[in-house]
């Protein structure tokens, strides 16, 4: 297992390198001079020249990349060209926010999807199955921005049950922090739940039809024990893959939800930085998002091994 992990970790280095190279080239391909965009509607030639030089735009692309990567290797992600803020510090401010939202959204998604998926598979073609499918489809089809605004008007403006948006660190005010997470987690969670639920349902149906389940049933195991102890665990393998991808995606920031609920996370940082062509900040965000996806995938592989001992054994014999 350790060797397996070590090999996977080493593989992430070239992945991150290529991601950074691609991002660096792509962002410079976006039309529009970044210095000009920063200056907005008023631009004077003198100021433009100074700004271009300061942003290093007068140097060739490959040199700029080289300088950047050499700094990154020394742990220095640079400073925002907009206000000299340290990219690393800004990221460290945003990541916990986004991570919290990602985790709470996944909890909402699981709380809906796992019971609903298992029930739908168990009571296939029943009213429960159709109801679960309908709710799942609704969750996928309703756009986040619409659901978000509706929730704000219902729960914050009319009922005054929850604050409409914003963020407070949990160590400053835990109660308010959790209240603030409710609506964005519902918006993100319901959208994710649909996919997980559909996947779990089909995977579960397959497992329920397999030989060992029939044997277990013949042994006289109750349905509840059968489903929770045996079928669900095996049906979770494909689901874990999807959840891993979802978590990775969430860590990259949920732009629309963050915007509507004024959650100061990685997603809004990414969008603001791209719109203002704040290169160092964009690079930092993307590097983090790539790192998050790689790390989550690694974690998912470890979870596989836990869910299915055969994967562990294969690795040992290989």
């Amino acid at each position, binding site marked *: 297992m350790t060797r397996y992990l070590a090999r996977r970790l080493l593989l992430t280095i070239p992945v991150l390198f290529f991601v950074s190279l691609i991002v660096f080239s792509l962002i410079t391909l*976006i*039309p*529009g*001079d*970044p210095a*000009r*965009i*920063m*200056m*907005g*509607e*008023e*631009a*004077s*030639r*003198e*100021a433009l020249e*100074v*700004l271009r030089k*300061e942003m290093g735009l007068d140097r060739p692309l490959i040199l700029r990349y080289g300088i950047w990567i050499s700094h990154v290797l020394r742990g220095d992600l640079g400073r925002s060209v*907009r*206000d*000299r*803020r340290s990219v690393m510090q*800004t990221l460290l*401010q*945003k990541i916990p926010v986004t991570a919290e939202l990602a985790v709470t959204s996944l909890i909402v998604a699981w709380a809906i999807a796992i019971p609903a998926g298992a029930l739908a598979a168990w009571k296939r073609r029943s009213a429960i199955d159709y109801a679960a499918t309908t709710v799942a489809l609704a969750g996928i089809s309703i756009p986040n*921005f619409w659901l*978000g*605004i509706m929730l*704000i*008007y219902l729960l*914050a*403006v009319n009922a*005054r049950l929850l*604050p*409409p*948006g*914003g*963020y407070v660190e949990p160590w400053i005010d835990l109660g308010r922090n959790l209240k603030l997470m409710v609506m964005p987690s519902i918006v993100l969670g319901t959208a994710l739940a649909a996919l997980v639920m559909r996947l779990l349902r089909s995977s579960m149906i397959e497992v329920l039809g397999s030989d060992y389940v029939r044997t277990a049933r013949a042994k006289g195991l109750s349905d509840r024990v059968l489903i929770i102890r045996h079928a669900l665990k095996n049906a979770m393998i494909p689901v874990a893959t999807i959840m891993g991808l979802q978590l990775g995606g969430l860590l990259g920031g949920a732009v629309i939800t963050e*915007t*509507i*609920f*004024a959650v*100061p996370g990685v997603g*809004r*940082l990414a969008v*603001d930085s791209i*719109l*203002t*062509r704040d290169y160092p900040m964009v690079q930092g965000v993307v590097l983090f998002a790539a790192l998050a996806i790689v790390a989550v995938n690694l974690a998912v592989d470890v979870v596989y091994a836990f869910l299915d001992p055969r994967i562990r054994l294969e690795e040992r014999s290989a």
Partner: protein
Amino acid sequence: MKRLLVLVVIAVLAFTSISIAAPRRGGTIRVGLNADPPNMDPHQSTAAVDRQVFQNLFDKLVDINQDLEIVPMLATSWTISENGRVYTFRLRTNVVFHDGTPFNAEAVKYNFDRMLDRSFGSLRFSEVNLVTNVQVVDNLTVRITLEKPYSPFLSIMADRAGMMVSPTAARQAGKGFSLQPVGTGPYRFVEKRPQERIVLERFDRHWDRNAGNAQQIIYRPFTDENARLANLRAGELDMIDAVAPSEVPRLRTDPQLKMAERVGIGWQGMWIQVESGIFANKALRQALNATIDRRTLVRVVFGETAEPGNGPFPPGMFTHSIPANSRVPERNLDLARQKLREGGQPNGFGFTLKVTPGRTPQQVAQVIQSMAGEVGIRVNIEIVEFGALLSQLDAHRFEASLLGWSGRPDPDANIYGFFVTGGTLNNSAYANSRVDALMDAARILTTPEQRRRAYTDVMNILNEDLPYLFLWWPKDYKVYSPKLQGFVHVPDGMMRFRHVWLNP
């Protein structure tokens, strides 16, 4: 009889003293902005939204009032020399920066040096580069000499270039001043978390004892206009900047909220590239212009949230009443057809109209498309990302494009750079030596009457040449809780909170 009169007077006095409530101290003003202010250094700032925070963090040499007149701020009085080149400012006494540094003539000189230092690269450089000398006459008198007369100079001092930063803090922080800005304003900087909040706190040593009623101001960015309004409705904000046009009629009668509304100082319309291509032909520009019904366009797209316009001077500016600026032309299809024949395209022609993404620019483009289509002018609408569009306009690589200007209080800043030959903002590549000479003259002329005459001549030429079709003047909106008192809506759209207070 006499006694009755006294009683009446007493009653009236009592009544008025009740109705004019005294400002209350304390509380936190929570403001929803439409974007996250990127930079807190007025000498480096580029984004318009930065200026909202600056109004309360910094004082300027002078300010503008509701009627766009120059009023004292850090300078209590000033004189302008006969030749219009020397400005002598008398500065306010007992002013200190938030870090304790005294504000005086030396501080003013330092601020100009900083803006004019090429190696520092201030974004204000082009606004103050006519300054050739800043002389400290005595501790509280500073004399600024310009290379040539420049009548908009005071209005420049009422904006970012006139905001005074602490020399001590600025020397120490250099370019990093933005992270810990220090001014003399009624509120001092506490913290800024990107995309989250900016916190200002009352500065106890501010020179104006009546300023800074609230203890704190918190700015929060909401890029989504629905979410911004919802937060105000939920009681999480006290004031928001800008609302969706569709919300305006409902807000006007909303008993729970107050709305301030007035025409701003910016202009909107269509750039036409006149150097090459189909629109190098003036008659064709005139033909297009004659097809546009500005009143209908505004009614369809903006409802009550804009006014049809025909020039760069919205209502409120002293140059507004110039007929070529304020008279909105009627649509005239016969004239359009006649101009098409004159231009050698009797059956019409086609051109590409570039617009930024978003619902409003596309709606405007579609209305123009259908209006122009009636005489055979085919408009091909192309959506281009804002940054990319700016580059194309700078390079004059376009035929026509919808893009406007947020506006400045002095007429010069609403016209000069856009139409002077070779100007950085002259997207049309328009060149007319007569217009250049008249606009230069208007910079030297000192009385409003003389300047109005010069701009009248400019506008008559621009309305004939049409390098830009001025179409509408947007209104500025602020929506706020009834708890917020004493807000004065200045047409520049800036939220000045120094004399605002919160009722419980």
